[in-house]
């Protein structure tokens, strides 16, 4: 597809604000640093073209919410030489985030960030913008996830569903890992053709964001970006949750097991042969 000047580029940033992230617990300033960087990054995206659009979603420990745009409008006047719209973004994001943090219940114990759900919300929003665009316009959208959380295996199915939905809708998913390396999200970037970056250090986070994630999909081909590392697509068995090379798959529900079992633990199917069927016909190489 050739890029066209009239195309609208929508960027949805998902910012993990869960206070149980290790980097935040270690250093309270890390949060402020990230928010500032994300706001500046979002504004730089808006600066590229007048028709570019931005949305910011916060993934908090208790709830996922839109920080920008919001239904109620904030009235802003310029206070300095900053472009009015950029001021609006900055003010709205910070204002909404403060509201969100203040209203959130106190965290009792560290809990996971429901990032997969946040991605699904972003996809629903993108689908709506896509429906409402005026005739003849084309929308290219992407999602950037900025997180320092660990990923949690319990969200595996949701992750896979949203990745394939994104792939189908032509939405690119980019991931900026602040702390741990995230293999599941890396799979998502690989499936949707996005960029995955694990930050070496938190300092200069804005510069990293601008370098790797600012160019849109078409421009990335024209620039030299960090090469994608090989993604590990091995499956984990359902019984022990270990990565396996060779496994046994239930023909009814596709559950994966590392050993032969007489009954499928997921769908309760009783398997007929205790020995697994090996594909009998063996083709010879001509």
């Amino acid at each position, binding site marked *: 597809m050739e890029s066209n000047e009239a195309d609208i580029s929508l960027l949805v940033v998902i910012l993990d604000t869960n206070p149980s992230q290790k980097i935040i617990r270690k250093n309270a300033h890390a949060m402020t640093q990230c928010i500032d960087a994300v706001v500046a990054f979002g504004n730089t995206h808006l600066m590229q073209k007048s028709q570019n659009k931005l949305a910011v979603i916060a993934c908090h420990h208790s709830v996922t919410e839109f920080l920008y745009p919001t239904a109620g409008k904030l009235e802003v006047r310029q206070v300095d030489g900053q472009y009015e719209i950029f001021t609006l973004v900055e003010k709205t994001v910070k204002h909404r985030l403060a509201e969100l943090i203040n209203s959130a219940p106190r965290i009792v114990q560290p809990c996971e960030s429901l990032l997969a759900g946040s991605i699904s919300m972003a996809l629903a929003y993108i689908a709506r913008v896509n429906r409402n665009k005026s005739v003849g316009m084309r929308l290219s959208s992407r999602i950037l996830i900025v997180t320092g959380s660990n990923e949690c295996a319990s969200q595996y199915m949701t992750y896979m569903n949203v990745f394939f939905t994104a792939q189908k809708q032509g939405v690119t998913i980019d991931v900026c890992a602040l702390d741990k390396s995230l293999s599941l999200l890396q799979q998502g970037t690989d499936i949707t053709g996005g960029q995955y970056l694990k930050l070496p250090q938190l300092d200069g986070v804005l510069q990293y964001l601008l370098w790797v994630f600012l160019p849109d999909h078409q421009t990335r081909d024209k620039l030299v970006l960090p090469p994608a590392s090989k993604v590990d697509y091995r499956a984990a068995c359902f019984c022990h949750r270990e990565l396996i*090379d060779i496994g046994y798959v239930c023909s009814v529900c*596709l559950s994966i097991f590392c050993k032969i079992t007489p009954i499928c633990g997921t769908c309760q199917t009783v398997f007929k042969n205790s020995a697994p069927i090996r594909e009998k016909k063996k083709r010879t190489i001509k």
Partner: protein
Amino acid sequence: MADDPDHDGIDDPKEYRWETGYERTWESIKEDEDGMIDAAIAELIQKAKRKRQHDKTAQNRLGMMRHVFLIVDCTENMNTSDLKPSRLFCTVKLLEMFIQEFFDQNPISQMGIIALKGKRAEKLTELTGTSKKHIQVVQELTKLNPSGEPSLQNGLDMALKALKVLPTHASREILVIMGSLTTCDPVDINATVESLKTEGIRTSIISLSAEIRICRYITSETNGNFGAVLDDSHFKDQLMAHIDPPQAAQTQENSLIKMGFPHPRAEEGKGPILSMCMCHIDNKDDPSKLSSAGFHCPQCLSKYCELPVECLSCGLTLVSAPHLARSYHHLFPVKQFREVLFNGQSDKCYACQKVFTAEADKHVYFCEMCEQFYCCDCDLFVHDTMHTCVGCNTLPGVQKRIALKVSGGQGGFGI
């Protein structure tokens, strides 16, 4: 559609359209205050969309591993231009879409194509799991000059021969697209039908002209669907109905299938090893290149360019985990939302943030799991495309609640 219980079976009283009640379609369209009917039409479309969705019910036992033979009629009757521009062109166009979508939704399934040309059956592709070759072959059908009469039996026999040898844990199916009203067979076709039945091969037929007794008979004997198309969009609906995996047949044997999950072989400190792939080794036009990329079979270390594939040397099925995950949504569909009249329950749609207004949103949709409200578009998006409820996955605790509710024996899913 054929999924509808009312339309299944030969001796159904309301089998034909002209036997059903007189539909006063115009009466369901009401003008609003301004004399416009846009709103009414939008509502009708919405209802139709939701109905389709409702037909899908949660089934836990599906034939996820499918071996399907597609039999396409390529004889004189396909020249008829009741479907635009001609039956053959229209079929080819829809099949391209069908094949793409089929492999998208049934990642570990295989498909083969047979063409019926002048009383003979010709196997265009063997059973394979990649869409590229099938689409290429189907596109070449347009160059054909269809002539003669088809032989349904020859086609079915050929498919039967190929499917018979396959292990029974897979769902084995035949889908016929028939343009002709007649079939010219060498011997009694009932014998073929009988063996299809004993083998448990599901045979479905889509007729482009009219309902044919023998076709209806074959499908009802083998548990398949029969459909005669009204127009191209109806044809598309009929075809797309075959994308979702069918319910597992009773006769189907369940078993564990051994599979390999290749992963990049890079050792610490060393670059990946250069090697040649197995898939292009016989291909003279596009010979295999020496490279470090590719997937290695964990059993015999042969290399392949893409997944899923069956290892040529040791016969192991090689897949990647996301391939399997792609079909999980068939097994764990999102629970239907409840349609409720809008009276200010929520100010905006939980998923897409659309602000509800009394004029535009007469109904809103309520998920009983996460207790959030959604707009109609998101309802469709969640169930048709994403297969993931937004609220259930963004609000902590809901997942646990769901797990408790359905814990009737189901284990956890995930890595």
